[in-house]
């Protein structure tokens, strides 16, 4: 990749820093503008500002942010600095902003290592510029279909990115038949990770994002399921099947609302680990982090300890002390992730209040059809839900979804702004669970963290 000349680099870096400075002065955490400013002067500024850095890139539908937080923890355990695009701005402009603002005025990187979350569609633009040492692909679920068309198109977009960086090590989820197919006919070294033991109730998922063999169209069979379309799959017709993982979860000892104790096997040894976040999908995030950390060359003990340290990240599963009771915010943005969150909430055997927030902005996807695939019936059948609130651009759609899921319409109330939700939570004697999608999470989190003394996300 050709690098921009020095003059344009200086302009681009200066523009990036200036734009970020202005945004911070005005108290906004906006992250696209600085990157756009830099891109205006030098389209490929990233090639210069990342030169010589060692970078892990994490992409995939769910778990990008949590996996990145785990890796960042592991990288900084020994006190060395590590860059990360923590705000979740994960398109070319956001990645450009993060890396270019941290370059010196001549465009040379000041920090040697970075963990970068990258949007599935933006991967092909980003990776040829930064040449990551490791690329992690977490999973592929239906998400924001109106942006990418269809799920196999998303897979193909990732594939295009990978083909541009044959030297990068791939860390792939062996349990996901769509992700797994990315390893075919590329020279990259692959580190597989996966779950070697059944999880969940082993029912066939009602809605699967990958029912049919990607090669021949025959329905997959499973030796066991873990969640959604993930598991030990194989095609009875053409023989396409799950790869045995190098980094594997072999046993779950105990799982509760605060985390999971489990056995991980990698590097020829079995390790007892604690993952400091509840739910099955966070086990996959821990596996992804362990695989990427190993591939990157991080020291094992520090890596394992960091899986326990990560508690919540930016609205993914964050707890606020709002009043007499706690408020927990869980980001949901597609049926697979949502069903996991709903299982978690219904598993808590006490009276509670639910707030469901739905926006349909560009970062959310304009198409909100997915809410009809998520298992809100499960939540509507939970006798401990005493009150429902809905909020957001598409609050009316969420309200209607709850009605058809079987919730009592008399117990559903539509709220009109973030402050109303905050007031309700502060007055609530019962724990409050807020399930927002992406942009509704951003605005709610701001209000809740300000009211409860949390820090702004870019700090």
């Amino acid at each position, binding site marked *: 990749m050709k690098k921009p000349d020095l003059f344009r680099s200086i302009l681009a870096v200066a523009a990036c820093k200036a734009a970020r400075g202005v945004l911070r002065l005005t108290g906004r955490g906006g992250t696209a503008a600085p990157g756009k400013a830099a891109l205006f002067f030098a389209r490929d500024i990233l090639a210069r500002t990342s030169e010589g850095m060692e970078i892990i890139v994490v992409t995939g539908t769910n778990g990008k942010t949590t996996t990145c937080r785990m890796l960042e923890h592991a990288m900084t355990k020994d006190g060395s600095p590590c860059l990360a695009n923590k705000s979740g701005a994960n398109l070319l402009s956001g990645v450009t902003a993060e890396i270019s603002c941290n370059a010196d005025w001549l465009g040379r990187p000041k920090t040697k290592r970075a963990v970068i979350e990258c949007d599935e569609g933006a991967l092909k633009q980003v990776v040829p510029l930064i040449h990551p040492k490791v690329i992690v692909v977490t999973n592929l679920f239906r998400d924001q279909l109106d942006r990418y068309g269809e799920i*196999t198109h998303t897979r193909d977009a990732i594939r295009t990115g990978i083909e541009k960086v044959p030297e990068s090590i791939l860390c792939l989820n062996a349990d996901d038949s769509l992700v797994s197919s990315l390893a075919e006919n590329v020279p990259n070294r692959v580190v597989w990770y996966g779950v070697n033991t059944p999880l969940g109730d082993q029912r066939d998922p009602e809605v699967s994002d990958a029912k*049919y063999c990607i090669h021949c169209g025959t329905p997959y069979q499973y030796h066991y399921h873990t969640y959604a379309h993930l598991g030990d799959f194989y095609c009875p017709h053409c023989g396409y099947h799950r790869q045995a993982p190098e980094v594997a979860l072999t046993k779950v000892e105990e799982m509760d609302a605060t985390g999971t104790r489990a056995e991980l096997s990698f590097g020829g040894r079995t390790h007892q680990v604690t993952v400091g976040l509840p739910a099955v999908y966070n086990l996959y995030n821990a596996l992804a982090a362990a695989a990427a950390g190993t591939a990157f060359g991080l020291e094992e003990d520090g890596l394992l300890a960091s899986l326990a340290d990560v508690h919540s990240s930016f609205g993914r599963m964050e707890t606020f002390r709002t009043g007499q009771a706690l408020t927990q915010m869980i980001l949901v943005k597609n049926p697979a992730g949502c069903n996991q969150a709903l299982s978690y909430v219904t598993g808590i055997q006490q009276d509670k209040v639910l707030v469901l927030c739905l926006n349909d902005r560009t970062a959310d996807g304009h198409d909100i059809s997915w809410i009809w695939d998520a298992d809100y019936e499960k939540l509507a059948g939970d006798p401990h839900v005493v009150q429902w609130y809905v909020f957001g651009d598409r609050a*009316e759609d969420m309200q*209607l979804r709850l009605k058809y899921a079987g919730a009592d319409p008399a117990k559903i109330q539509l709220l009109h702004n973030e402050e109303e939700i905050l007031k309700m939570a502060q007055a609530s004697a019962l724990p409050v669970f807020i399930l927002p999608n992406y942009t509704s999470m951003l605005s709610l989190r701001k209000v809740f963290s300000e009211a409860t003394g949390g820090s702004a996300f870019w700090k």
Partner: protein
Amino acid sequence: MELKICHLYPEALNLYGDRGNILCMKKRLAWRGIDVSVEGCDIGEKKDLTQYDLLFIGGGQDFEQEVLLSDLATGKADAIRAAVEDGKTFLCICGGYQMMGHYYETYDGTRCEFLGAVDLYTVGSKTRMIDNYAYEVDTGRETIQVVGFENHSGKTYLGAGVHPLGKVIAGNGNNGEDGTEGVRYKNVFGTYSHGPLLPKNPKLCDLILETALTRKYGSCELSPLPDAFENLAHDAVLEKIKNHTIA
């Protein structure tokens, strides 16, 4: 009274929240005390389609549509064409709607032969037509405004013997050219509104249910339901569409 619904290819064609449409029909019948059963008929399953009153076909991924063409060729295609001519009610959405036509011709000229149950055909284009949209449907009693979400790159053109389901108010509809949306032929309702079309359009849902019940029992008038949430959701989207009329 009882309505028997067959969900064709619930696993192969399930992409866009079609579950919402089945759920909506089931609930709106149950709330009126009408019995309802829903059975799936997937790839490899042999079922007697004449035993059903209403057949539902949803949208799917490009890839998966190819998978089921060979299944259709095992006799289902004939059964579907016969059911259409027999006046059975069909709701066909997006990929399922295209599949009822003669063929789909991709952008590079490859032709995929479809059912030919309804006189229409589809041609692939380079642009994807994606957004909330709205169209007007004459129910025979009144004109209603239907809101939905379209996401297709195929452009569908209707033959001489069939009518569009509605007239586009905002958005693309069948092809973005002639202002038509969907198809109405005998008791077939075809549309590009994918996913949860019916919950937000209770009048369209009831029209489809009444069509099926009338075919079975000679006449049918469904009692009104408290549709406050339905109408709120409908009106909110309609307003959104009208406010930033789609480019």
